[in-house]
């Protein structure tokens, strides 16, 4: 029970990262599966090498930033589809993660981690540790809330909302996209580093399927808290992660074993996505169609839009040609 709460709060860091890409930037970033492990691997190897655990965790964040930036480069400068760009980085990271760790599993037994002070004083699994973790994730949440309302943050939100508009206002959407992907994966890698230290080992497969865990958290949070404002949406992502852990906790209690959890997670996401279609939880349909962004308009001289129907209906002359000049 306390364990589920603690895990939920730790994984909330990742959920916040996934929220940044998936909801704010409207970008389904699959780098997460790789960068999470990168975070765990970087932190674990550095800790074993004798580095201060906090420094090791900071280094993990740096590794995540780079991973996200690479996905951003592939997508913006390389013109590779967002999903594929994420998959490419994720797959590539597998080898890099093995290189970082040297082997598939790095135990952190008896090493000093960021959780050591709590563990030694027998405070893990108590309200105190939960309070500390909650405070930590809330600080991250408020940092995101603040960031997204700055001039730079607003241009990131607009990049996810209407690229054509924000480019016409002088924002290089390539840069905002890469920045957001880097930040998001920084969060994810931080989460990976914390998880590795919390569970006492880093494992090459610790990130597999994590994007779904992140999505499940964001969707569940949104269903419960709505997404009308950033403050509520990011809180939703944070607490969605806790809710998700509880559902997993209950599923395990009900007799499923840990190997069933991937299927449980997938089903959870599917159900959460389909419910609005059947009339429940109308708040969350935006995830199914990935946001309410203005319809993307093709470049090469085409200006035809559905709105012309309105124009035509109102008797206003409108173009009908495919390539209006």
């Amino acid at each position: 029970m306390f364990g589920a709460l603690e895990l939920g709060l730790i994984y909330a860091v990742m959920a916040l990262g996934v929220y940044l890409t998936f909801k704010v930037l409207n970008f389904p970033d699959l780098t997460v599966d790789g960068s999470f492990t990168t975070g765990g691997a970087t932190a674990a190897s550095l800790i074993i090498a004798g580095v201060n655990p906090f420094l090791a965790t900071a280094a993990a964040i740096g590794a995540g930033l780079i991973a996200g930036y690479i996905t951003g480069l592939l997508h913006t400068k390389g013109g590779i589809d967002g999903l594929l760009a994420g998959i490419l980085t994720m797959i590539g990271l597998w080898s890099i993660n093995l290189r970082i760790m040297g082997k598939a599993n790095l135990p952190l037994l008896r090493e000093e981690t960021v959780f050591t002070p709590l563990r030694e004083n027998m405070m893990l699994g108590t309200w105190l540790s939960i309070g500390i973790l909650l405070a930590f994730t809330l600080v991250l949440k408020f940092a995101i809330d603040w960031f997204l309302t700055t001039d730079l943050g607003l241009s990131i939100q607009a990049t996810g909302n209407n690229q054509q508009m924000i480019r016409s206002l002088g924002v290089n959407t390539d840069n905002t996209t890469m920045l957001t992907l880097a930040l998001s994966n920084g969060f994810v890698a931080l989460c990976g580093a914390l998880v590795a230290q919390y569970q006492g080992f880093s494992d090459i497969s610790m990130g597999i399927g994590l994007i779904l865990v992140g999505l499940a958290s964001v969707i569940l949070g949104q269903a419960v808290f709505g997404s009308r404002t950033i403050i509520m949406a990011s809180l939703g992502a944070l607490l969605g992660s806790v809710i998700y852990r509880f559902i997993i906790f209950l599923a395990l209690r009900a007799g499923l074993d840990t190997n069933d959890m991937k299927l449980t997670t997938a089903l959870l996401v599917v159900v959460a996505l389909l419910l609005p279609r059947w009339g429940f939880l109308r708040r969350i349909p935006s995830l199914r169609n990935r946001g309410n962004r203005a319809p993307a308009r093709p470049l090469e001289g085409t200006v035809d839009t559905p709105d012309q129907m309105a124009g035509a209906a109102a008797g206003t002359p409108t173009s009908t040609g495919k390539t209006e000049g």
Partner: protein
Amino acid sequence: MLKIDSISKTFFPGTVNERKALQDVSLELDESDFVTVIGSNGAGKSTLLNTVSGRLPIDSGSIRIDGAEVSRMPEHKRARYLGRVFQDPMAGTAPDLTIEQNLSLALRRGKPRGLGRGTTKARREHFKDELATLELGLENRLKTKVGLLSGGQRQALSLLMAGFTQPRILLLDEHTAALDPQRAALVTTLTEKIVSSGGLTTLMVTHNMEQAIALGNRLIMMHEGRIIYQASAEEKKNLTVETLLGEFSKLKGASLGDRALLN
């Protein structure tokens, strides 16, 4: 102010679909000129605007704004000179952001964006004053998401966002075409107001001849990628739809269908 010098643009060159959208087009706008661009489908009007804005690269020629060569400049860099309103009312604003956030984004057009607060109290007061000029009551709905506004309101807001930062050139791409007649009339009135109060140099594409005659101090007519008729400030004062149709019927190969569309 804006100097377009013999620019050309061909779509799908070397294929069966090859289309010469702009052929050796030259046009010069002086300070505070308001030029309306008219022409039938495929005449190259929108392509002309899109090449100025940088959304489309040109094949040859040069585009200068304030003497600076911009034809190789990416779209987001040219934005510092340009205010733009698109035909699609959904295109010029971010629907999930509030009115004040959209205005804040527009306020920083072409300037670096840092970690300063997006919507400060001072900015909010400024926005209220600006929104009040639209007379749509939007000044009391600063925290409303733009996605909840009607097409006409969104287009009015886009117009304000494009104009209130005093761009060197304002580009209007059939920005009333997707609105019903009443809204179109409203946005047309606002266009006049914003352009004249800011003394903005403006290039406006339209399908509507009457609008093209009513607005602005100069008019050009395009056909098949060329400028085929220009009315100077003097000529434009006495211009009628009949004159324009007469000019159009002089063209070789202009069909009756095209004429109908021009109306």
